[in-house]
């Protein structure tokens, strides 16, 4: 059913009229034009669509818009501040943490949420924390390294 809904999107108050049973992924990509969040499987199995809702990584392909009412949504487009890449984004570039790049936004958003909870993760913890995000190119080893490097950088910055 179409209704008005409000939430914060990448730090900005956002209001739109939308069928709130629709999945957040499609509303982000089409209604709101934020195409950084990707479709990969549609069933919460791959993680390409991962975004943050109140700092928690969720799968936007299976999250109805109504569930983000009055909450804070952050997508990959909202991570860089004033044109400066977030340490996680920078670490993915510097440590070759991507190849085709299609799973990358989901990987970064998942890692962001994970690092919020665990600021000094071991590599085993990173592997466990990232295990449900799929990458077909085989960039895994470098992604673990990038997340580790970002954790150090973020600790220094905080």
């Amino acid at each position, binding site marked *: 059913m179409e209704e008005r809904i409000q939430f914060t999107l990448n730090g900005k108050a956002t209001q739109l009229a939308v069928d709130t049973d629709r999945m957040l992924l499609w509303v982000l990509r089409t209604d709101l034009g934020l195409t950084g969040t990707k479709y*990969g499987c549609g069933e919460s*199995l791959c993680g390409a669509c991962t975004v943050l809702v109140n700092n928690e990584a969720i799968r936007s392909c299976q999250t109805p818009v109504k569930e983000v009412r009055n909450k804070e949504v952050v997508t990959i487009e909202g991570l860089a501040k004033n044109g400066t890449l977030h340490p996680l984004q920078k670490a993915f570039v510097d440590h070759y943490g991507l190849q*085709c790049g299609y799973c990358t936004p989901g990987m970064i958003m998942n890692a962001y949420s994970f690092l919020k909870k665990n600021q000094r993760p071991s590599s085993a913890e990173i592997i466990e924390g990232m295990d449900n995000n799929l990458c077909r190119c085989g960039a895994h080893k470098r992604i673990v390294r990038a997340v580790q490097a970002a954790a150090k950088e973020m600790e220094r910055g905080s």
Partner: protein
Amino acid sequence: MKDDQSADFGFVEDTFDLSMNRRDFLRVTGGGIFVLFTVRDSLLAQEGTGAARAFPNSLPTDFNAFVKIGADGRVTCCTGKIEMGQGVFTSLGQMLADELDVSLESVDMLMGDTDLCPWDMGTWGSLSTRSFGPALRAAGAEARQVLVDLASEHLKIPAGNLETEDGFVFDKANKHTRVSYAQLANGQKIERHVSGKVAVKKPSEFKIIGKSIPRRDGGDKVSGKAKYAGDIQLPGMLYARILRPPAHGAKLIDVDLSEAKQVKDIRIIHDGDLIAALHKYPDVAETALAKVKAKFDRPPAGVDEKTIFDHFLKIASDGKVLAKEGDQKKGRQESKDVLEETYLNDYVAHAPIEPHTAVVNVEGDKATVWVSTQAPFRARDEVAKELGFSPGNVRVLPCFVGGGFGGKSRHLQVLEAARLSKLSGKPVQVAWTRKEEFFFDSFRPAAVVKITSGITGKGSISFWDYHVYFAGERGAQQFYSIPNHSTTSYGSGWAGTQGAHPFATGAWRAPANNTNTFARESQIDIMAAKAGIDPLEFRLQHLTDKKMQRVLTTAAGKFGWKPAKGPSGRGYGIACGTDAGTTVASIAEVEVDKATGNVKVKRVVCVQDMGLVVNPEGATIQMEGCITMGLGYALREGLHFKGGEILDVNFDTYEIPRFSWVPKIETAIIDNQNTDPQGGGEPAIITMGGVIANAIYDATGVRMFHLPMTPERIKEATSKG
């Protein structure tokens, strides 16, 4: 085109539009200095690449610029290759920048724009660096010479006294007497054809080639800015969701669209076999499609993943002999032990995380296209054919590709989008769901390999009789010193023939070679164990190829290999092979849980000799990617199907490698900068089936003959063994 000739290129058929003349490159791109090259010249100039042999008379004669130097000093590198993760966005730029003596930062990449880039067959076969690379470097060297000649006039200094560096031509005697490329290009409109007479740099002169440079597309890819086909949004664009049959070969017998038509703002298109719901939101189109009531007549189920192998052996026609030497009969007579084994592998999906996607905008007699494809020029020609347009009226524009692995050398989705755009009069996006991606994949074919081989009492291989069914020829020929050997391939290659496969098959990263290397390296291991000789030693005893010896001994040194006859209980395996001109050896360590059948790959050491390396870190990452992806087909990936019905529809039942599967990976690339660059995107994956099978044997004494080596299969084998 014959199968063997196309073997290097990962596809079997193609059509070229020979009517096209020179495109209006200069008009479109404005002034500057252009270096042009016909693809025919480029490919024919490279003896031994296979391309010249494959297409002696069918290469297009039109030409386009490889290089543009603008009045702003920006250099544009134009290529029909696409970036799908393999890193050519960076490495091709490195090659051009080095030859031209400009900074890499000043090079812009223009990839896969069919109006502006030189014609290209497609991005596959690990050919971007080894085949396109030399042509691009030649164009860069030629452009540099043009600039030196212009500077000579401008500075009134003989060309021989001039040098170039970082976008400037300067007087050797006085570095301050100089002129920038930008200045030289200003107001010019110079077209130069590559003469092939200007020498490219020697490895000792390289400044940018051979350097590890982070991906230049990285910034856009980590910030969500990089555009893939599905990210293209045009005013008025509709997303299409298309009615699919439940199985390949099923026929639509009845359809009721009335309920679907009730969805607000929906457009239902029913045109012959094509039924689609179109809406400005893809999920609403999906909702409408779900309301379509359709009845299909299904064909009888036919073969499944268990019966497919007998089916292959039954339908195989006469084989094609790929190699034959010596006398098999004599070899058998000299054998102490004769080993006859059969190896199988299941169908494997490409499963890129980005499903096939396309946007087509048909306006009048012209069409603009964005498509996730490994072959933009072929997509252009096929869209033109579908629409009845001339190829010159179809333009494919660049976008990033979210993984290909061979699967995006086919692109049915763009034909669907073209048809729907024409029918609806709107720009249309077709983005396959994961289920559609599995359904329409051109799977790596299931295959059978039968090998009979013998060893003498002294432990040397006396004969080798190799028969491969339906995998293809790449990597089939063995390279060991065996006096009596023959290799025969049956059925077609990976593209399949009528009646062979119940669905489409095609090239999958290092096509055929994964199957062939698994079978060969397993059989070699079986013989080594039978002879009671360490498997590394056994291989070295039968090798004369210096490159192969070197990658094996280097890997062994890195791994800390200590000789032992198998099975040693340590869980060590070894395998080697060649692919795309590159020689590769891998050693793995595994742990097998006999109770569950689970295999943990703990460590993989991989060494390859790939000639000149343009971006060492980039090449290393390709090796790591191969090793990681290879865990999938070795351990888990095997398609479930019943005739034309694909039972795997998502990543729950079709498992691909995860973080927790990844072993400790150690790689090395042999320093060999003075030979031509060879393939890098595929070779390291070919050994993964064999190296893990051999390690499992070493751990358990049980030999696995069927890929993937799932826990169920391992449990079954160990309970028997």
